[in-house]
């Protein structure tokens, strides 16, 4: 595997466009929460010129959560977050990667170990003493929000379905969280797509490698994502669209594997071009006059938080357009940047408090709105929101499923 010239050029080339306007520093949710992180411009375009073959004396880059807001707001098109993700990989390969980071970034390993013994695993993860020991031994914060194993996988459910036979096919990339923790979300997604006349193909699939990437373990991340796209590419080559409910994993396929990991692979390219976030896909369907409009009333108040990685798709907030179609649904669109968790960042002992501080504004906005549910497209953000507010947090698909009366 080679690192693409475009990826290298995208990062290094964009660096020179930084005019030091500091808009990224003003927008960075982590820099606002802790003095341990001097901000994306400081650790990115400025520090980049000091990064040589010798380890840097400055490790503040490690406090970047990787949320990507800096790239989003940069008016000069500098790929600040991507520069910093690559720099973190370099720094961690020079300084060594902890056992903790190896463990928390391998979701399929956790899933395969935890699923058969789900009641036991969930009891251990919910036990205060066990969590205290885990914090001391490994460095996962005792209070950090961890999901519960469902005890069965979404893939098992998928294998028991009859094969897709319709001509109007769509491929579902469900990701690890749906497979091991929230298989119900996958079933509802399939129901919503089938309601709209699609035959849903669910190929065997494993992790996209995103948690590994954000922990700076690029080699394994590359082999994960390459293996995943081998399974998805044949469908993309036939012209089928691939929809993702895990918005961060969808973004990994769309651009992060290319731009951050620098994977130069034909399977990845064709998968990337055919991957859609589920809400993006459904809004496009509506624009084409093909989305079924038989939405029943949903007399609920919900807050909507567009997670950072969802914003990285550069598609705005399509979930809001879908919610507009649902009678009696009251939606409070929250104008907060980040919930703090950033995938695995908020799980770490030394970063948990920062993550909670980053999310505090979002949590209080949600509590103030007194919603029936807090809607958010990203699973780790939903777990963090529930942890920070005590409120139920659901994917937009759950609201659509309910409105369709499925």
């Amino acid at each position: 595997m080679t690192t693409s010239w475009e990826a290298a050029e995208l990062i290094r080339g964009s660096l020179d466009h930084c005019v030091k306007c500091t808009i990224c520093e003003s927008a960075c949710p982590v820099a606002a929460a802790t003095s341990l992180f001097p901000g994306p411009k400081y650790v990115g375009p400025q520090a980049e010129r000091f990064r040589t073959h010798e380890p840097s004396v400055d490790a503040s880059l490690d406090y970047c959560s990787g949320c990507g807001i800096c790239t989003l707001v940069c008016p000069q098109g500098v790929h600040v977050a991507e520069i910093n993700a690559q720099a973190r990989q370099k720094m961690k390969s020079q300084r060594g990667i902890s056992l903790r980071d190896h463990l928390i970034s391998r979701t399929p390993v956790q899933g395969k170990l935890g699923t058969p013994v789900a009641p036991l695993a969930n009891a251990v993860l919910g036990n205060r003493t066990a969590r205290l020991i885990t914090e001391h031994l490994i460095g996962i914060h005792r209070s950090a929000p961890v999901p519960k194993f469902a005890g069965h996988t979404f893939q098992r459910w998928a294998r028991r379905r009859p094969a897709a036979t319709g001509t109007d096919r769509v491929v579902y990339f469900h990701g690890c969280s749906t497979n091991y923790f929230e298989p119900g979300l996958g079933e509802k997604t399939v129901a919503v797509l089938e309601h709209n006349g699609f035959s849903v193909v669910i190929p065997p699939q494993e992790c996209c490698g995103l948690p590994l990437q954000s922990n700076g373990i690029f080699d394994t991340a590359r082999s994960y994502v390459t293996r995943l796209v081998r399974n998805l590419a044949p469908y993309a080559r036939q012209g089928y669209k691939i929809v993702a409910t895990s918005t961060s994993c969808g973004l990994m396929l769309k651009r992060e594997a290319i731009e951050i990991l620098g994977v130069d692979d034909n399977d990845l390219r064709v998968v990337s071009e055919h991957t859609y976030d589920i809400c993006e896909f459904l809004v496009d369907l509506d624009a084409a006059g093909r989305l079924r409009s038989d939405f029943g009333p949903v007399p609920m108040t919900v807050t909507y938080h567009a997670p950072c990685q969802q914003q990285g798709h550069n598609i705005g907030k399509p979930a809001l357009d879908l919610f507009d179609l649902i009678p009696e649904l009251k939606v409070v669109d929250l104008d907060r940047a980040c919930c703090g968790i950033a995938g695995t960042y908020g799980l770490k002992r030394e970063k948990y408090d920062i993550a909670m501080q980053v999310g505090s504004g979002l949590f209080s906005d949600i509590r103030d709105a007194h919603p029936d549910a807090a809607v958010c497209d990203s699973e780790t953000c939903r777990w963090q929101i529930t942890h920070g507010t005590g409120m139920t947090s659901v994917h937009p698909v759950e609201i659509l499923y309910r409105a369709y009366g499925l």
Partner: protein
Amino acid sequence: MVGRPIFEIPTVPPSAPGMRLAKVLQDRLRRAGGRLVLGSEVVGAEVQGGQLAGVRVKIAARQLAWMCRWVVLATGGFASGGITVDLSGAVSETALGLPVSGPSPYEPQFLPRYLDEHPMATAGLRVDPLLRPLAHGEPVYPNLYAAGAVIGGARPVREKSGDGISLSTGYLAAGIILQEAG
């Protein structure tokens, strides 16, 4: 506390008044049912029957067209990338490929003295009184308006006119569209 009036000077970013103004405008937009999409780059025009029917944007993994009735081009001047100059010295507008007036490749790119005005400072679009960018004296599209530093002809650094031009042309463009929308 100090018993004296306090005033703010808008500065280059991070500018507290600028951030405050941006927040006020964004809140108003959201409350009015508008959508704000960050981070997608406009890469071309969608033209139908002489009208600008929308803009082509680059999003993650692909391009798509956003269709609309009016477009305000506020991509900024040379410093912001709205206007660019290539290695041959040719000046161009980056988002929609509109004709630009500015120093030609055959004119000097730099003047002799350190504090002389840079010739690129005046580069930008020519517009009519309704802020519509012009080509050969005629509006390029009847439903396209320009605002801010993408409009040429000013010497913002020397005149200290940059923020004033941005605010007044942005306000005017919005007013014209509101009038047309009835």
